[in-house]
């Protein structure tokens, strides 16, 4: 069974291909450049290199968010359109879970996060279980980092932080948690499409291409304001 993996949910763009949980190829870039322009050439190159035709694919796995709205849409749209066109299923996997899975051998809770601007982060809590199965302790959501760290502090157990945006929140994390915080090392901070493939092969459930939608974790600004206004009126 051959699965193609796509992750464009952050600045990191990743494409990988595996057959029966054996990685055949992986392409990752980590710099701010246009995913919409570069994703399909990357997929094309990888498949060409491996001498695999689109028709040989059995499924497509994609990081469905949270992350950059546009980035997530590029990956999800490409994955669902290609899967639909090939009549194969898709795996929509949390982009935070992909990152969390880098903490495979960590026994405490794992906190992957992606900066969401204005002091906020997209985050969740995960924990490794038996046979490398990763469990979701707190689902992905958007939260003020300060409030999130208060919550984590009360858990009173070691927490592994994994993020490309760690430096942005470093001082707040070390001030709030001191020794309770464990910081991921080098490449473990990077979301990898090969890890997305591991999740697809080992524990995720595939769905139909039509059903795949991004996970933004929040409404659009316009909708939020509209709802506030509407609720304000109802209260009055």
């Amino acid at each position, binding site marked *: 069974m051959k699965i193609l993996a796509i992750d464009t949910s952050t600045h990191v763009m990743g494409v990988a291909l595996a057959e029966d949980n054996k990685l055949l190829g992986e392409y990752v870039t980590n710099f701010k450049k*246009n995913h*919409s*322009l*570069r*994703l*399909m*050439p990357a*997929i*094309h190159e990888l498949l060409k290199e491996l001498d695999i035709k*689109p*028709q040989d694919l059995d499924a497509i796995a994609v990081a469905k968010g949270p992350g950059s*709205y*546009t980035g997530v*849409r*590029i990956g*999800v*749209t*490409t*994955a*669902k*359109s*290609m899967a*639909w*066109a*090939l009549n194969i299923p898709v795996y929509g996997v949390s982009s935070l879970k992909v990152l969390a899975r880098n903490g495979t051998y960590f026994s405490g809770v794992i906190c992957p996060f992606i900066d969401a601007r204005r002091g906020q982060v997209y985050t969740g809590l995960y924990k490794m279980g038996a046979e490398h199965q990763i469990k979701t302790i707190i689902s992905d959501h958007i939260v003020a980092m300060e409030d999130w760290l208060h919550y984590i502090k009360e858990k009173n157990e070691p927490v592994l932080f994994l993020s490309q945006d760690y430096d942005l929140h470093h001082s707040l994390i070390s001030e709030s948690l001191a020794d309770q915080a464990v910081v991921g090392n080098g490449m473990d901070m990077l979301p990898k499409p090969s890890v997305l493939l591991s999740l697809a092969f080992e524990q995720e459930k595939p769905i139909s*291409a*039509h059903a795949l*939608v*991004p996970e*933004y974790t929040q409404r*659009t*600004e*316009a*909708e939020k304001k*509209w709802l506030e206004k509407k609720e304000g009126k109802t209260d009055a």
Partner: protein
Amino acid sequence: MNIEKEQIKDDEIILAIETSCDETAAAVIQGGSSILSNVVASQIESHQRFGGVVPELASRHHTENITWVVEEALTDAGVIFADLDAVAVTAGPGLVGALLVGVNAAKAIAFAHGLPLLPVHHIAGHIQAARLERPWHYPALALVVSGGHTELVLLKDEGEYEVIGQTRDDAAGEAYDKVARSLNLSYPGGPQIDKLAREGETIIPFPIAWLEEGSYDFSFSGLKSAVINKLHNAKQKGEVFRKEDVAASFQRSVIEVLTEKTKRAAAQYGVKQVVVVGGVAANKGLRQSMKDIFSNTEVELTIPPLALCTDNAAMIGAAAHIQWKKNIQADWNLNGKADLALF
């Protein structure tokens, strides 16, 4: 994927995708003129409460709907992937986040089935909606009027577009929506103003921006402000204007400049055909005025039906026919662009 010129057939079947604003659309077009299917999923109800299109919301809806809409287009047309010769998509201009959904979907579908990818300019699409009605007679002139565009385009030959005039500020449709809002009409206001105008009288003197002599450019922001100020001042003084009269007077100013400049350009360039396309081409007042001007002339007037004037993918498939014949293909690095020169 390089196709030799002698091999290029002209009854090709193209799957076309359009997501430049708030309509998720897909169509299957044969030979650039025959509509095998034309599916449009409008998001208007979702944006109405905001009084206009919310770009992020439009992009989200496109992502949710895209495969459903494309599937319906294939099913309606009764074709399978093996029947397709190419996939065409609007590459711009438009809302960039919205365009990206169509572009990435088209790339994925074309890649999956090894099909050529044809990039289409949204305005070329609007203009080529005319070929879904009847064949072109060159030289021709196209008036493109919509919520985002007001342009006069000269076509000397097939696929040769020369913009001879365009708006310097608001698009005509934009002015309609803003005036409608100041009359407390719901979004989109254009059709409502058109309807009210038929029941009103042109008794309020609103300005018409003719600009410099010989210019085919347009300007609607002065007119828009004049209407808004007039209503504001009237309210302060306790005067009341009938909405119908405001609509009729405003619409007259818009239509007069559109039809007059089209008439002058048609005469100057000696065109054989004039086409009026874009969302505002649905306006009954504009249609009538164009008919009045060109009915007893040698110039053939083409105004496609409403469904082909508002955003749709059939027009993209029609425009893609020219790309197909000229063998203009995009690479896998095709991107959506908010601003894009007409091609």
